[in-house]
């Protein structure tokens, strides 16, 4: 009796080997299809960007985060030339992605060449868990090519406060 239990306990479920040939052929077909769809998806993404946000008017605002020891980001409000273009509330997953070095494209739009005012309000919890809201404004000259602006939240070790900086990229 004991041995029978042992044999049953040891029974291995040989599913993988039973349909090996069928599995292999299905896998090959699915891989090829995935490759084709991924290629098409990339082409569509590039087409969409070129069509909706042409290079001469393209303007993007990015947000990046330092370690975030002095500031727990809840939301960001972005204004371009006084008009609100983005208001983003952050999930845990998004914050974690930012803390690990990810850069969020907060807004992508079209702007004419010339001078524009970018204003961002950072809302969250500051040092000691207090409610915290800070704004940063920058006048940006947009030329004939695309323009990118990076909003960066950094930890300032000298005064244990969060710092907010704006960097322009061409």
């Amino acid at each position: 009796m004991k041995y029978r239990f042992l044999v049953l306990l040891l029974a291995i479920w040989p599913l993988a080997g039973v349909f090996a040939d069928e599995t292999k052929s299905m896998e090959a077909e699915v891989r090829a299809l995935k490759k084709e769809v991924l290629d098409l998806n990339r082409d569509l993404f590039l087409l969409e960007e070129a069509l909706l946000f042409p290079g001469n008017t393209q303007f993007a605002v990015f947000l990046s985060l330092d370690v975030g020891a002095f500031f727990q980001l809840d939301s960001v409000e972005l204004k371009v030339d006084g008009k609100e273009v983005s208001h983003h509330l952050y999930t845990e997953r998004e914050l974690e992605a930012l803390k690990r070095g990810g850069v969020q494209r907060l807004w992508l739009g079209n702007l004419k060449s010339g001078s524009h005012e970018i204003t961002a309000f950072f809302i969250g919890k500051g040092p000691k868990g207090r409610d915290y809201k800070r704004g940063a404004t920058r006048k940006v000259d947009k030329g004939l090519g695309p323009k990118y602006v990076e909003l960066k939240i950094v930890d300032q070790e000298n005064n244990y406060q969060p710092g907010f900086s704006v960097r322009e990229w061409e």
Partner: protein
Amino acid sequence: MRSCRWIGVALAVALALPVPAAETSARAPHGLDYGEVLYQFYQGRYFTAITHLRAAQAKQVLGEDAGQGALLLGGLYLGYRMHGEAERLFQRLLAQDPPPDIRDRAWFWLGKVRYRRGLDREALAALARVGDALPQDEAAERRVMEGVMRLRQQDNGGALAALIPDEAGEGAWSPYVRFNRAVALLRSGRGAEAEALLDTLGSAPVVNEEQKALRDRANFALGMHLLGAGRNPEAKAVLQRVRLEALQSNQALLAAGWSDAKEGRLDMALVPWKRLARRPLREPAVADALLAVPYALSRLGGQGAALSQYRAAEGALTQELDRLRGLEDSIAGGRFLKSVYVVTEEIGQQPASEWLALDEAGRDLAPLLADNGFREALQDYLDLAFLKRRLEQHRQSVQTFGAMLAARRMAYARQHSRVQAVEADARQRALRDWRDALQRRLDAMGDDALAFATDEEQAQLGQLNALRERLKRLEGHAQYGTLEARRRLLEGVLIWRTHSAYSARKWAARKGMRGIDRALRMAQTRSSAIRRIERQTPADFDDFEQRIDAAGKGIARLLPKLEAAQKRQRAHLQRLAAHFVKQRRARLRAHLVQARFALAQIYDQAATGGAGEEE
């Protein structure tokens, strides 16, 4: 012989490898484009990450992140089970003679691709090319992979050489290095060392679910090893450390019962076996317990209770067999896939168990999800469904793009005439002529301070000149001298003032000219840009039209292929699931036969006058 089998069970579950994401190196500043890809990647949005990464590669904007980007893409392909693509990508990367950190990681990933494909010899060859520039975690993962492959090749010495715990400190892979080292030690006959390692792992403080699962696995493996070695009380103590909700809980309860049974304490064995027998009949261990309980009762002399338990087991097994017949119908009808739902919005590369879940009706199929082949096939099925949904969305987008382009063409036609009118406008030329005239005038003024006099000063000078003419007529008059002197004084003051202001005025005039030149240049640049756009736009429209057309055709071609592949994949999954249920039914039937045989034996004993039966 028996102990070997027990160890066999332990080893069958022992080769432990978590499935990590295609992680990039530690936090470092990146360019915006690669940073944005990482933002998607770190959120588990792998499809979007692949799309954005490949778009950034096509635009050639990754700059210094290009090498890291290629590694990440290869890892994402691997997560998507696109092994061929991943292999080609890493090969291409290595052919470019990358810097040591990228090179070592590329060899590591190439080894990993081959490892996943089951090409152990090729994988080991790739891993052997890895230098010492690998990050600590990946170096530990490399050791685990090599160790597991050596174990698969029965090369226990090689496995032990690979599975050396990291002296630099504890990382995510450290417990897996130690666990697999324990397996290698067991296989090498170094039981005492293996026991010490497993015991450390099995009693280590744990924080998260992954650590708890590994601790359960270590305790189960150690318990089975001790049981196989006949050290039953020790085995029981270790098996009791396996959590009741652990994956190995059913087998651990069964084995814990056996540890008592082997010591002749069948009454004690009944405690875990009865607990196990009350559990849903989804695993063979539960069916074993259904028979083990009456077996123990019978051996303890409780024939009546044993009879009752065998009858109960017979009933439960029969009922389960009937229920499985219903499940077979459900599988044949394709309904079982509805019991599996995807937890995440996007397809990920985490272990499928974290991304897939079963509803109540699908719990019977839970062991299927633990099977690598089924899980991959299911993941492919879900990938196909996801990609099909994406393409359907894109089909609508492409129609919108087409409409947008048509609207733009019309707008362009309207703007075109305006642009031509602006170009034909003589105003720009008139402005340039005016500027040239101003420049000539400024040149002619040279160093003449009076030429730079203001309009007011010019008027005053004119007045003073007119006054001089009028005074000439009063020459000889008594007041003439006084008046002429005053006029000269005023003229002198005026000339002095214009000379004093001359330098500043000349500078201002030149500055003004430079301003005019700047404005004219800007107008000219804009005008050139407009002309360039004007010339380029029709070609751009044609290019867009071709791309939209190609995308539309691609979608139209791929959608039916996806649908057909999804259908075939569903049928394939049905066959796998049906086979699984068939096997389960066969096992249950074997248990049923045993239960009926035992019942017959008890009846037989009763009929032949066996004493001491109870009802």
